[in-house]
């Protein structure tokens, strides 16, 4: 009875819903995701969901390719001065914003200045620190003058989305919500409801990559289960993230294809070992530096590295879907990643041997080693942000693995804010599980390990090595790409040797598509990332 009534209701509603439906027809690609842009204002946006939309609606000077290289997008050509301080970009003619206004060097220069001048933008002005002046010439050229020569202007410009000057010059840089979102990219904004959906329509006149579908809608699902269920039942055509546990069951679905790979902006899960030297303790900035002294000993860190069974962690926590980590620089960074390093093999006996040799003995027979002087047992606090669902599983495994070498852990989830306060520059912890999102350029993550960053709160480990600091300064101004690559690889070797972090794995990016409505999904590349427009501009409806 109840069942019948339910179906009557559903049928009635469907009839209502279907009456005049399908204005977009089969050409509307529906994408399910777990988040929503925090804001459509590129200046203030933080979340990756926002950047995905920016990539689709805006253009920038360079386009990042799936192999990690950059190609010019808005400009026909670029010329660099001999001192490497002046870049002149020749902007393509005939590019139009969605409202019909032409996109010119004026707009680009305005945009770059805009990003640079607003110091309270969280990220954008991070890419403009080396910009001295940005000017537009009457010949539709943009001239960028740098304060010092840098090796990676392409990586700086790739996220500086070009905004229409005629709209933004009168807008409040922070408060402007940008709901109309006039850009020049392959998709146009139709409707945006925060935490509900983003509705885009194709810009068939796009100068470079006009999409083949007519519309794309990103729909927010608050729960992972709903997301997976939505693609199973065909309520969406693609999902951009899901728990690794769901992969196996989705692979079993006909019409659904799952792709797992390293993303463009790879996420690194790291185990932070507090090794700050008391001399470097930033007391003036709130440093407490209560870390366990044993962690300052490389032998202990090395033993921990040897006792960490990354495969098991990946197996259990990520269901085997991630690649083992080496240093903070993930394999997703392509050429920057030092693939010549050999990871510490998982060898409990060896780890025990290292500790024995270094004098850490279990003198009182309680299964926990003490410091060489017999005091202070190796009992570490292990913290992680309480909003992480995977970290507690990792913590459990670590507790078991390190227990094998006489290291005891006190597991405690901590509120993310409290963890921030505990972390840095307070250094009021022993071991933490946390993570980093990476830039395409290694500069950022390498900087995290420099001595200079200890008082600023960027350095989580308190690691300090003058040799590394020197190399960091060198690579930052090394214009020769190959030389810079060599430097970067050398730096990775140093931190790997010093066991600054233990990196259990690099997070995979998992996406799933329905193949019964659209074809042409890019699945054979080493990277998958929706932020790249390629998939959405190349897919076409099934005939």
């Amino acid at each position, binding site marked *: 009875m109840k069942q019948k009534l339910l179906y009557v209701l559903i049928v009635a509603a469907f009839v209502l819903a279907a*009456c005049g439906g399908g204005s977009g027809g089969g050409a*509307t690609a529906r994408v399910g995701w777990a988040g929503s842009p925090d804001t459509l204002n590129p200046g203030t946006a933080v979340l990756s969901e926002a950047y995905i939309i920016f990539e689709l609606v805006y253009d920038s000077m360079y386009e990042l390719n799936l192999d990690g290289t950059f190609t010019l997008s808005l400009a026909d050509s670029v010329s660099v001065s001999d001192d490497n301080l002046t870049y002149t970009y020749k902007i393509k003619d005939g590019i139009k914003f969605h409202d019909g206004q032409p996109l010119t060097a004026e707009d680009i220069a305005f945009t770059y200045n805009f990003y640079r001048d607003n110091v309270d933008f969280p990220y954008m002005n991070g890419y403009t620190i080396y910009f001295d002046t940005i000017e537009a010439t009457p010949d539709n050229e943009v001239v960028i003058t740098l304060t010092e020569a840098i090796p990676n202007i392409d990586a700086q410009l790739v996220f500086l989305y070009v905004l229409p000057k005629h709209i933004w010059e009168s807008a409040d840089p922070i408060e402007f919500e940008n709901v109309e979102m006039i850009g020049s990219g392959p998709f146009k904004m139709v409707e945006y409801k925060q935490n509900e959906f983003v509705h885009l329509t194709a810009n068939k006149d796009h100068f470079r990559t006009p999409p083949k579908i007519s519309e794309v809608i990103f729909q927010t699902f608050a729960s992972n289960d709903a997301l997976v269920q939505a693609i199973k039942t065909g309520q969406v055509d693609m999902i951009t993230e899901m728990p690794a546990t769901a992969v196996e069951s989705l692979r079993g679905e006909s019409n659904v294809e799952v792709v797992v790979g390293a993303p463009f902006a790879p996420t690194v899960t790291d185990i932070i070992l507090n090794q700050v030297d008391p001399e470097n303790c930033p007391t003036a900035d709130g440093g407490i530096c209560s870390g366990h002294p044993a962690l300052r000993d490389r032998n202990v860190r090395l033993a921990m590295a040897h006792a960490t069974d990354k495969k098991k962690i990946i197996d259990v926590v990520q269901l085997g879907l991630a690649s083992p980590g080496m240093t903070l620089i993930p394999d997703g960074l392509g050429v920057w990643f030092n693939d010549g390093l050999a990871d510490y093999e998982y060898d409990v006996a060896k780890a025990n041997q290292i500790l024995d040799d270094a004098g850490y003995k279990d003198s009182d027979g309680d299964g926990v080693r003490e410091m060489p002087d017999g005091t202070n047992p190796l009992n570490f606090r292990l913290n992680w942000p309480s909003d992480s669902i995977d970290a507690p599983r990792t913590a459990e495994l670590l507790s078991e693995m390190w227990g094998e070498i006489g290291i005891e852990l006190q597991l405690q989830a901590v509120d993310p804010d409290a963890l921030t306060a505990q972390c840095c520059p307070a250094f009021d912890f022993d071991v933490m599980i946390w993570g980093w999102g990476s830039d395409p350029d290694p500069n950022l993550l390498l900087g995290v390990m420099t001595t200079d960053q200890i008082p600023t709160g960027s350095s989580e480990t308190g690691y300090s090595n003058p040799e590394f600091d020197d190399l960091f300064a060198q690579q930052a101004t090394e214009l020769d790409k190959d030389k810079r690559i060599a430097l970067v690889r050398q730096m990775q070797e140093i931190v790997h040797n010093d066991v600054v972090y233990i990196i259990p794995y690099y997070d995979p990016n998992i996406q799933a598509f329905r193949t019964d409505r659209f074809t042409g999904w890019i699945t054979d590349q080493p990277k998958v990332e929706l932020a790249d427009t390629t998939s959405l501009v190349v897919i076409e409806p099934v005939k």
Partner: protein
Amino acid sequence: MRVKEERKVKRFRYLAGKIGWAAFTVLFVLVLNFFLFRVLPGDPARAGVHDPRLKKEAIEALRARYGLDKPVINCFETLNPIEVGSCGVNPLETQFFIYVGNLFKGEFGISYHTNRPVAEILVERLWNTILLIGAGQILSIIIGVLFGLFAAWKARTSIDYAALITSLLAWSLPTFWLGIILLFWGSNNGLPIGGKALPGASTYPLLQQWGDIAIHMFLPTLTYTIVYMGEYMLIMRSSLLDVLSEDYILTAKAKGLSTFQILKDHALKNAMLPLVTVIAINLGFTVAGAIQIETVFSWPGLGGAIYEAVLRRDFPVLQGAFLLIAVSVILANLLADLAYSYLDPRVQTV
């Protein structure tokens, strides 16, 4: 007609007392709300944006934007740790008075997470929540009251036991657990499981949009109804049992009234009295109670907003929600008192 006058005065006093107390509670909550969120650890400016890459300038700018550069209140720069600061500050330049002043202007601050005014976010979400909760409450009240009525009337029969066990069972289900099970059941039966409407449906004809919203509402409303129905049924049943054993029911029966007339004219109104309070309090709290349902079904309501704010530690939004919920509970209580004074003639003269 002196009696009438006196009743009016008493009634006025009763109402004035209730309203006065409600106003005081609101004031208290306002103050509590401010200080509660100032005792938190860490730097509030960084709390919203978990990114150590933020530059010093950006942090300073953020602090200024959220007004955190000003002293909390006279003599106190911050609350955690409590440091004595300057007492000679213009009170209007302190965070507390700015907060109060903004509240009077209807401003709840700016979300750390989205940079949008909190008031705007909350109001936008509030309507969706009202839609969901309204439907859920109405359904659960109707079903609960009917079941309760039936169970009490047929007390100690198998009908009663069945209704009682069903209600207790419904009450025992963890909301999100029920939600997720219904989500799977529903999506396998072709029901939509996310959002309030099909994205892009805003171009459809009006009638069709409503139909679309209706099918999207089905699962969350069902979950809500099941969860709350049990509570209402239990209250209705026990309160009706109390009423039905009162002597005036025997009087009514002796008067020759039929069972239906007795239930309708004598039992229902009296039995509804305790329910009114519970409904009112629930109405106030369901905003928060809908968190689980809204999260499971991606319903873009206030509960969902609170959930996100919890996850992202978006304290201005939490603060706003805190105030909104508290005030709505206070108002709901006030409403219950007013309803009570109409339903029960004994109340106003106490």
